[in-house]
């Protein structure tokens, strides 16, 4: 239903039209009964506030020099959290480097995310328990891994889908097209979740592609495509739920385009003022903020009040500060760690080089 409606809108309407459930004013366009109950709605809100709070903390850690370059996601919480909450524990998740809201919501410890951006090898571990892979830095390359994992699920008759997260820029890479094609040919249970945040670093989508939308690319491969308001957590949740259901029924892959916006810099090493009018864009996008619209809805439904809000803020701060101080008080990573896990068993040269570094470090230690 969602898919048909979404496709109809894409083909007949101009630019910013997409499937939407919850308006920026917090009103429902479509009933959510049977799909999203009160506790899920409140849970979504809590996750989004938590994610935004840690995103801001990470930026400030970076500014204080206590963390390396960091890729912030503020503005994209609904696209990440709405999609990840629609998955089940057995599904496979292939994130790129901006998906901390999604991975942490799915259960990855925040500590792991902080370790990663502190440049520690133990931050790259992913989260096996929930089938979360380490973040993929080379753009679009991991979509094919999701394809392969979904392929294995189908062969082994497992009731699991794979989902790959990526940005609008990623849709220019060959790997994106190969993924859609492989998934289409084999009718694989895979969801391609594109967060179209309008920019790939400095390049706006209209310079990235002459396609009007990303979702329409699906039709070239005769797979499903949905364009959804990526700042509408209900819309994203319902779109991904439907894509997941279809995948498990053997109806193949879906390309979901979640239209959103990153409020801040591409990474902390970037200055968005160099390539876009931040003030104008922020004014426009803050009106569509994913968190504010859900709060309006919850308040209207008497599911949320000021007291809960301040309790939530206090809880978030406490948990996040706790996670941060845990990571900051870890002993420095041992140089030896780089020699571990290159192979199941270290060949002679790696073993020798490890010894060599150990000797050097012991000597340095004695000198100082």
């Amino acid at each position, binding site marked *: 239903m969602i898919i048909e409606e979404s496709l109809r809108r894409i083909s007949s309407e101009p630019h910013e039209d997409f499937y939407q459930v919850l308006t920026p004013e917090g009103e429902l366009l479509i009933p959510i009964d049977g799909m999203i109950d009160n506790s899920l709605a409140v849970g979504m809100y809590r996750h989004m506030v938590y994610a935004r709070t840690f995103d801001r903390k990470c930026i400030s850690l970076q500014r204080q020099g206590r963390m*390396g*370059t960091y890729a912030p996601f503020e503005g994209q919480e609904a696209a990440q959290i709405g999609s990840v909450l629609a998955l089940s524990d057995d599904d496979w998740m292939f994130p790129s*480097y901006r998906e901390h809201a999604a991975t942490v919501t799915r259960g990855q410890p925040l500590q792991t995310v902080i370790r*990663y*951006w*502190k*440049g*520690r*090898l133990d*931050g*790259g571990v992913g989260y096996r328990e929930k089938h979360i892979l380490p*973040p993929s*830095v*080379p*753009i679009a*390359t991991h979509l094919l891994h999701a394809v392969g994992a979904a392929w294995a699920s189908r062969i082994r008759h497992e009731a699991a889908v794979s989902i790959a997260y990526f940005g609008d*820029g*990623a849709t*220019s*890479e*060959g*790997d994106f097209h190969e993924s859609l094609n492989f998934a289409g040919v084999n009718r694989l249970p895979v969801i391609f979740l594109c967060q179209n945040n309008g920019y*790939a*670093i*400095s*390049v706006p989508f209209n*310079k*990235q*592609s002459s396609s009007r939308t990303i979702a329409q690319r699906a039709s070239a491969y005769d797979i499903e495509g949905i364009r959804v308001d990526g700042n509408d957590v209900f819309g994203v949740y319902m779109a991904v739920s439907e894509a997941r259901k279809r995948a498990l029924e053997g109806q193949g892959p879906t390309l979901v385009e979640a239209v959103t916006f990153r409020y801040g810099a591409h*990474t902390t*090493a*970037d200055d968005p003022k*160099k*390539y876009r009018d931040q003030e104008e864009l922020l004014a426009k996008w803050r009106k569509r903020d994913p968190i504010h619209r859900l709060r309006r809805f919850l308040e209207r439904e008497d599911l949320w009040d000021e007291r809960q809000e301040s309790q939530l803020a206090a809880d978030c701060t406490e948990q996040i500060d706790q996670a941060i101080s845990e990571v900051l008080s870890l002993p*420095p*990573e041992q*140089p030896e*760690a*780089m*020699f571990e896990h*290159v192979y199941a068993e270290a060949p002679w*040269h*790696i073993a020798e*080089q*490890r010894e060599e*570094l150990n000797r*050097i*470090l012991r000597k*340095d230690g004695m000198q100082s």
Partner: protein
Amino acid sequence: MTQKLNIIQAITQALDQKLADDRRVMLLGEDIGTNGGVFRATDGLLEKYGADRVADTPLAESGIVGSTIGLALNGMIPVAEIQFLAFLYPGLEQVLSHAARMRHRSRGEYTLPMVIRTPYGAGIRGPELHSESVEAFFAQTPGLKVVVPSTPYDAKGLLISAIEDPDPVLFLEPTKIYRSFREDVPEMLYRVPIGKAKVVQEGSDISIFAWGAMMPVAVSAAKQIEEERGWTCDVIDLRTIYPLDRDCIIESVKKTGRAVVVQEAHKTASMGAELVSLINDEALMYLRAPVKRISGFDVPVPLFALEDDYMPTTARVKAGIAETMLF
């Protein structure tokens, strides 16, 4: 007339002057236009030369390198920027199977005057895959030249030579030293020849070969070892790693009888290994000690918390020199 420039400024100036000098020259790459490149190497050039000559491309390295080939075939002199060396991988097919082979397979009928510029190497606390130095891949690619400047003067002169070169050139820019120092750079358009190494410091006891961001490490090790032990080093900046300046390398080894290679690349099957083998072929009888490689380790370049341990340090280079001297 000269100006004090760092490496990145020298590169911008080379690009600027070649854009002004030759209508066929154009730049293309991700975020190079409005944003001026993630390291600002192309800052201001879009405003000056327009979008036909300074083109932001879609995010697709195979697309960038492949279309660079087509541009070069048809009368342009394209200079492509790849954001980081590891992100050239999606475009490797185009580099290895086409850019490097066009002259040979068309028996000289088609040639590719093109440059691929890309930052490379560790030392900037970059995220994962922003610190690779896999230059040896490209020294396995006949038809391609591989150039690595280590000073602002050479960066400008070598880039101009690369743009004027009739063959495809991979121009590797060491990010760690992009902005680490300035030196006098002539304002005029000048060339530093490709394929020529530079003797940075003369000495008689041992030859030290390095390139890119390892140059400052090699030089400081040489200075310290001279002060501490009185050994003098012939320090050589290879500048072009493919094809190598054989004569310069061999002449130095014949003079000193000892050699150390300093590289941040992994040790196995590296340029360092190639140097050992070249010296073996051409100067074996002059050697008084085995040639020593001081390298990055044979592990994936770690995330930045451990990058200082991964990279050769002055102390490691000094230890390598001492070992070779006392062999």
